[in-house]
């Protein structure tokens, strides 16, 4: 029996081309006669446009064209609304205001596009930006999450009565009842900061219009190639097959690259058709900070009701969610927050309300974590506050409230981002807690290490937090698997890859079912010319949805190959085995036929294909789960704090994660590493900050602090727990966002533990040495 690949750590198929500079990223695409675009962006956060004077810019040698919203004529229109509102939730209010690709009448955030310059090269295009004169009437800026919905607040969308973008209430049980029965109710006002996806590669698009073939070829860094292809086709009045959308190699996504209603996606294809020349736009880093979407930014009024013994009776969480100037991505993020708030614990009564508000800031759409970290931050902080109140140990209060293995599957009663009621499919939360607790030597730390360190004047603290990660939501993904005449296997999907290792993990699944070497499986992602059905890379769903589709499709191909071989070898199927690239008769090694020959024979040039037989060793398959598969874990950290300077060091980090059956454990670890890095970044380094006038003051890596190697712990100590998902044949769950969820909650708990000040409680998900210093001063003076 040949070795199986699924479950094994193997080197990635894609590494060689990436390591040798042979991958083609968006800016590596150069076409003859290609023009270059630069975008004029508003410096103002909120303003009425009087006039945009582009004449000087047009006159600059090398400038081919300059366009404003006026020049787009009827082509200018808001939208598309990428994600619809959750109609299934009773009483939900949602005021849809999709993105305006380019500002026409008014400007709603600083960085919003107002004009597009097309020139012979990027340098000239940027010279022309300086020559565009934007005449506006400045309007008052609205940025505060609470004040923006005050009755007297200036309106961002004048046709609405207020800046309320959405309001969704969900309740399980009765919060009132919980309070009535409670011994204690703890209340906290908790702030979650705003972070950028900050992929190392910025966004970009290259478009070529072939008027002879009536074929528009689009290379784009999108995480959702098919929806973007469809929206471009609709906008330009083309058929789907007249638009070929190709993902080049993509230098990281992390969420924001899912957006496909921004100026580049909508206007640049139009320009390429209008000018009949290839057009390229490459976003620069400042633009990426100013105008590519980002996430988090919530304000929570949270309460938890408990019995004296620490048993949770209920949780209430009313929160403001900043959606920025528009809400093109529906309610994905705040619904994820609602779905993840209590999900590790037995909480009989849970009341949660989203108040989504418009502000004069860049639009909010998912960034790795996508609402989950907010919910987990709120719940874990509430538990810490409750533990302090009740004089309980932080691990203990979690232990006694965790869901137990027999509770699964569990209907949560909360509608999630996929518009279905959440079901926790499987899990073993106590295992995750205890494994982590043991590995980090929680008790030893508390009893020996911490006191000893303190005696030496060192301030060390421990934090331990739980998290769940709802993954692998619908609607569906699909693929096509083909055994080629060379015997090599082709797997084609429209899923988008940004470094997750799909060229290897997808290949591992196909290779196992078809008995070929993993290096003989070629994976194509994100090319609508080769496979044109799919949704996109979000919600940690790739390996589960596409992987399952590949599993099913490759089994169909296997069956076809065996049936054909059975005829050709005149042997019943159950006496055949398929491995090493051939189908052979069991215990008759010399009697075999190679997959390549079978593929050739599967498309006969004469004779007839019998009824019931399909030509070709090819099959397509789709997979759509009824609901998501929920991963989970426990994160613990030991930190060292210098109370004089607020400087910190992470001495140890232990995480137990359960993503069901790992396809490639090495890749799973890689996903956890990256997620943890972003979570640590959010907690102590990264922060998008707007000033009192709506100016983003962190639009460079000078002020937006990207986590560096020396900011990370020496080792991410990972424990794998495996609770297979009952939802799919391989038992897989996603893991892409797991690492990014718990670090803020875990680190704040650890800082407090290190400093050991009775009245110190950190109420924000992101702090820095200065803030830490002030928390200490405040607690000391209290």
């Amino acid at each position: 029996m040949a070795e199986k690949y699924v479950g094994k750590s193997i080197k990635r198929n894609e590494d060689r081309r990436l390591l040798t500079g042979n991958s083609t990223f968006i800016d590596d695409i150069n076409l003859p006669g290609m023009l270059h675009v630069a975008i004029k962006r508003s410096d103002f956060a909120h303003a009425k446009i009087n006039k945009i004077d582009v004449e000087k810019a047009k006159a600059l040698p090398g400038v081919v064209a300059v366009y404003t919203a006026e020049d787009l004529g009827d082509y200018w229109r808001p939208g598309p609304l990428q994600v619809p509102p959750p109609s299934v939730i009773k009483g939900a209010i949602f005021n849809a205001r999709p993105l305006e690709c380019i500002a026409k009448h008014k400007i709603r955030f600083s960085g919003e596009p107002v004009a597009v310059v097309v020139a012979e090269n990027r340098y000239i295009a940027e010279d022309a930006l300086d020559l565009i004169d934007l005449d506006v009437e400045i309007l008052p800026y609205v940025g505060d999450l609470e004040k923006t919905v005050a009755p007297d607040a200036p309106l961002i969308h004048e046709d609405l009565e207020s800046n309320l973008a959405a309001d969704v209430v969900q309740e399980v049980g009765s919060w009132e009842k919980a309070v009535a029965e409670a011994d204690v109710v703890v209340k906290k006002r908790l702030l979650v900061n705003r972070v950028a996806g900050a992929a190392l590669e910025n966004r970009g698009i290259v478009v070529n219009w072939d008027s002879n073939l009536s074929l528009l070829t689009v290379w784009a860094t999108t995480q959702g190639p098919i929806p973007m292809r469809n929206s471009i086709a609709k906008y330009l009045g083309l058929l789907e097959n007249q638009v070929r959308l190709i993902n080049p190699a993509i230098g990281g996504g992390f969420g924001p690259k899912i957006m496909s209603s921004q100026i580049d996606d909508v206007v640049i294809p139009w320009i390429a058709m209008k000018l009949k020349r290839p057009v390229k736009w490459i976003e620069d880093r400042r633009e990426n900070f100013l105008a590519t979407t980002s996430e988090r930014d919530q304000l929570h009024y949270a309460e938890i009701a408990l019995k004296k013994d620490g048993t949770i009776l209920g949780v209430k969480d009313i929160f403001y969610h900043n959606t920025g100037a528009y809400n093109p991505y529906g309610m994905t993020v705040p619904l994820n927050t609602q779905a993840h708030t209590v999900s590790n614990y037995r909480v009989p009564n849970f009341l949660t309300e989203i108040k989504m508000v418009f502000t004069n800031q860049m639009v909010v759409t998912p960034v790795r974590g996508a609402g989950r970290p907010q919910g987990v931050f709120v719940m874990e902080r509430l538990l810490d506050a409750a533990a302090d109140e009740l004089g309980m140990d932080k691990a203990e209060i979690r232990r006694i409230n965790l869901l137990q293995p027999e509770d699964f599957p569990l209907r949560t009663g909360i509608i999630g981002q996929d518009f279905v009621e959440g079901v926790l499919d499987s899990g073993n939360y106590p295992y995750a807690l205890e494994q982590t607790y043991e590995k980090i030597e929680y008790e030893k730390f508390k009893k020996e290490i911490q006191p000893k360190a303190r005696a030496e004047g060192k301030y060390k603290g421990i934090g331990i937090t739980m998290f769940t990660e709802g993954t692998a939501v619908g609607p569906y993904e699909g693929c096509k698997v083909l055994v080629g005449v060379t015997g090599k296997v082709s797997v084609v999907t429209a899923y988008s890859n940004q470094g997750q290792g799909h060229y290897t993990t997808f290949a591992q699944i196909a290779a196992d079912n078809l008995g070929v070497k993993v290096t003989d499986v070629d994976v194509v992602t994100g090319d609508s010319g080769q496979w044109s059905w799919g949704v996109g890379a979000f919600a940690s769903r790739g390996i589960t949805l596409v992987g399952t589709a590949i599993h099913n499709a490759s089994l169909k191909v296997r069956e076809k190959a065996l049936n054909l071989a059975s005829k050709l070898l005149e042997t019943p199927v159950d006496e055949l085995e398929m491995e090493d690239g051939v189908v052979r008769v069991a215990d008759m090694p010399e009697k075999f036929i190679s997959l390549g020959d079978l593929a050739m024979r599967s498309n006969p040039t004469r004779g007839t294909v019998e009824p019931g037989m399909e030509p070709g060793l090819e099959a397509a398959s789709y997979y759509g789960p009824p609901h998501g598969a929920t991963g989970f874990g426990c994160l613990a950290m030991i930190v060292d704090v210098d109370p004089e300077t607020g400087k910190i060091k992470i001495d140890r980090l232990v995480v137990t994660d359960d993503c069901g059956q790992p396809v490639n454990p090495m890749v799973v670890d890689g996903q956890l590493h990256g997620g943890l890095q972003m979570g640590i970044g959010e907690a102590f380094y990264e922060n998008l900050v707007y000033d009192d006038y709506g100016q983003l003051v962190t639009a460079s890596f000078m002020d937006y602090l990207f986590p560096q190697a020396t900011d990370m712990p020496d080792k991410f100590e990972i424990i794998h727990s495996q609770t297979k998902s009952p939802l799919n044949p391989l038992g897989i769950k996603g893991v892409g966002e797991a690492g990014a969820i718990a670090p803020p909650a875990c680190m704040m708990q650890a800082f407090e533990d290190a400093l050991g000040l009775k009245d110190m409680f950190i109420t924000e998900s992101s702090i820095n040495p200065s803030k830490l210093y002030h928390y200490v001063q405040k607690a000391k003076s209290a």
Partner: protein
Amino acid sequence: MTQKVKVAITVNGTLYEREVEPRLLLSDFIRHELGLKGTHVGCEHGLCGACTVLIDGHTARSCTLFTVMVDGSDIKTVESLGTMEEMHPIQEAFSEVHALQCGFCTPGFLMTTVEFLEGNPNPTAEEAREAIDGNFCRCTGYENIVEAVQLAAKKMAAH
């Protein structure tokens, strides 16, 4: 009339003589004038390190240099290391321990590692971590890159 300046620059062993605008960034010269796309651009203000190349044997950010400033220099980019068929030991090491994911930042890390290992052929994990501190990676959390740098050192010693 835009000023053009004659430059003669050796890149990966080949001498290129070109006339360039004084403001042309070295990163754009390498990528778009010479078509060596392995050098990537991530921030254009000298912080992320994706555009790191070797100039006369020393690492530098090619996005914060004008091409004219390195006239007469000898430049090495990622293309000067291994090929698809035969990778450089550093590249092998990065693949073996999964030190890259999207791979966009990777060429910068590789060039930084080349210079570092020349000065320190047998680094500790701590030294390796400090050496790569000036290169940003969003995917890996750096742990595997630190390991790769140490593994590369062993491989090169064995060569």
